[in-house]
């Protein structure tokens, strides 16, 4: 077999996997898609129905009486926790990258960057355990009551602080997990910028920070967007850590930033065993539908990033 054919086959295999996974998910979930209809996306009821009564037949499909599947709370929980994580991680990540690239002597740079990248190497379950043991009691008993008391006037910051499990905790821990992705990519891009850009800016009288802010950062905007999208993908799909700290709220939307939530990824894990006790199999198929929606959201986010990068690229080309 020629080299060309062989590598081409491998490439097709990789690309085909995505199509196959989505196709199989769709096929498996199809009875659930038909049963649940569009209300799957905008209703707040996840109910397996009466597990201990006999199934009934709807549209030729065995279902449990009282079974309803609507996952708005999961979609909201997933998007909000990712949003909170990004709101924290992007500024912190950019700041850290600037410091690592410009504010440190080269000898220390290597070491600091090494540590930042190691953060990305920690398995997510470790973050989850740490969040469960350390972060939740600390936030729930000290930080959240303080925030609610002094910043309660900000929308969604007031009200009951609950127990530490919830949206803000998930966002915080997620942000820690994605900061290294943003920092590492941006730092490398900043360091890779040609020295003449920096020298030109400084020659025009810019301070070090001004040179960074007005010349170097805009030049690396593409990388920042790319890094953030990569981070978004990770936050959307993060499972274990969120499962351990989100409070696993079911069937209601968070009232404020401290409230318990659930995300699609963690919900699939936490509900699979229960779903398997549904004799009609509809619960598992509905979980597959959740997975399908999660897949679609991730694909949309990635597609959006591509479009953004494309326009960004054309713009910088014009400027250059």
């Amino acid at each position, binding site marked *: 077999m020629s080299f060309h054919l062989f590598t081409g086959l491998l490439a097709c295999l990789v690309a085909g996997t995505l199509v196959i996974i989505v196709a199989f998910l769709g096929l498996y979930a199809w009875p659930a898609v038909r049963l649940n209809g569009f209300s799957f996306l905008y209703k707040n009821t996840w109910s397996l129905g009466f597990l201990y009564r*006999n199934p009934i037949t709807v549209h030729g499909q065995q279902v449990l009486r009282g079974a309803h599947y609507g996952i708005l709370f999961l979609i909201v929980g997933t998007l909000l926790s990712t949003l909170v994580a990004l709101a924290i991680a992007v500024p912190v990540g950019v700041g850290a990258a600037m410091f690592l690239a410009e504010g440190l002597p080269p000898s220390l740079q290597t070491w600091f960057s*090494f540590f930042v990248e190691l953060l990305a190497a920690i398995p997510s379950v470790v973050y989850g355990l740490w969040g469960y043991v350390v972060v939740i009691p600390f936030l729930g008993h000290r930080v959240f009551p303080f925030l609610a008391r002094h910043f309660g006037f900000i929308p969604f910051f007031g009200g009951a602080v609950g*127990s530490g499990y919830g949206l803000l905790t998930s966002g915080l821990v997620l942000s820690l997990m994605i900061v290294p992705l943003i920092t590492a990519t941006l730092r490398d891009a900043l360091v890779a910028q040609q020295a003449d850009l920096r020298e030109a800016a400084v020659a025009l009288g810019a301070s070090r920070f001004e040179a960074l802010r007005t010349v170097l950062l805009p030049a690396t905007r593409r990388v920042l967007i790319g890094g953030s999208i990569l981070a978004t993908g990770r936050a959307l799909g993060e499972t274990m850590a969120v499962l351990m700290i989100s409070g*696993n709220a*079911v*069937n209601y939307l968070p009232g404020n930033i401290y409230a*318990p939530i659930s995300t699609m990824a963690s919900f699939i894990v*936490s509900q699979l*065993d229960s779903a398997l*006790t549904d004799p009609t199999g509809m619960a598992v198929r509905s979980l597959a539908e959740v997975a399908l929606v999660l897949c679609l959201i991730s694909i949309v986010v990635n597609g959006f990033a591509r479009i953004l990068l494309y326009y960004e690229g054309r713009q910088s080309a014009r400027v250059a």
Partner: protein
Amino acid sequence: MSLLPNLRPVRNHRLAWMGGVLALALAASVSIGARTTMAAGTINILETGSSLLYPLFQLWVPVYTHTDPGVKITPQSTGSGTGISQAVAGIVQIGASDAYMSNALVKMHPLLNIPLCISMQMVNYNLPGLNKIHLRLSGPALAGIYSGTIRYWDDATIKELNPGVHLPHHLIIPVHRTDGSGDTFIFTQYLSFSTPSWSNNVSYGTTVTWPAVPGGIGAEGNPGMVTATQDNPYAIAYIGTSFQNAIEKQGLGIAVLKNRAGNFLLPSARTAEAAAAVMVPKTPQDERISLIFAPGAESYPIINYEYALVSRRQPSAEMAAALRKFFTWAISRNGGSTPHFMAAVHFVPLPAPVVKLSQAQIAQIQ
């Protein structure tokens, strides 16, 4: 889009080194593991499920190893939902569950539901200053708390049940299980059998659609329920009696529950045996029956059979024999059901007529 950071040579080197160590360790552990299983020719029995039954299995296993050295039993605490689904899938030999399988499920997967002992469930709370007092609670009051119609500890319903107790005006944090759970099953049965509105809207199951109660939290397994209650003042939770020692150690409250006859009772061997005595004659051949909310003045309202879900057909005669021997030992008053074991987890041994029924089912394992 090449976004991943360039791996620095330093890191590569380190990673390679660490990888090498890891691989060596893995190889070593695998070879040791292989040797131990190969040498004795032991029969491995996997048990998974109920976190309520788990503490008892942990007590049983080391002792049983002396009785039958050829058998290695590995118990896991994963929740009854997992116990049912993994027994159905045939991944484990024993699925442990506080809930019997539903009619529809048994029809699809005809597993034996063998009771091994009787357990109880407590309702626990973390009320600063009041944990020493056994608060009185009823099915309707608990249904109100878990459906969000009773929001504060000093609600009229709870006050009425507890005259003279100074209850705080604080939001109640109801804690429920997020994993498929037999504890959820028996707790929601208590609510269903005592409160018609709960029966119509939520009903019972190993997983139910919990009404949305703002501030309510979910927890994994009985250990998670204990931790959540302990970490959250003003929380309330339903926890199996095998965790009573942990509850007492943490200084959490144990409620007295209203039974069908209208009496308020604490979980104890006496009240559990009273309830069992009423329900034993009603137990059918396949032993799938709820013992919840039993009649009788002294009957504790939440007791249940602890089930082992087992396939009638085993892959080998050795495995079938090993399982029969283990179950026979487990339900025997000279084996796993001695007062020594039962008292440690606050369980009650099966009454003699039920032992007979269980023995008949055990004999079907071939």
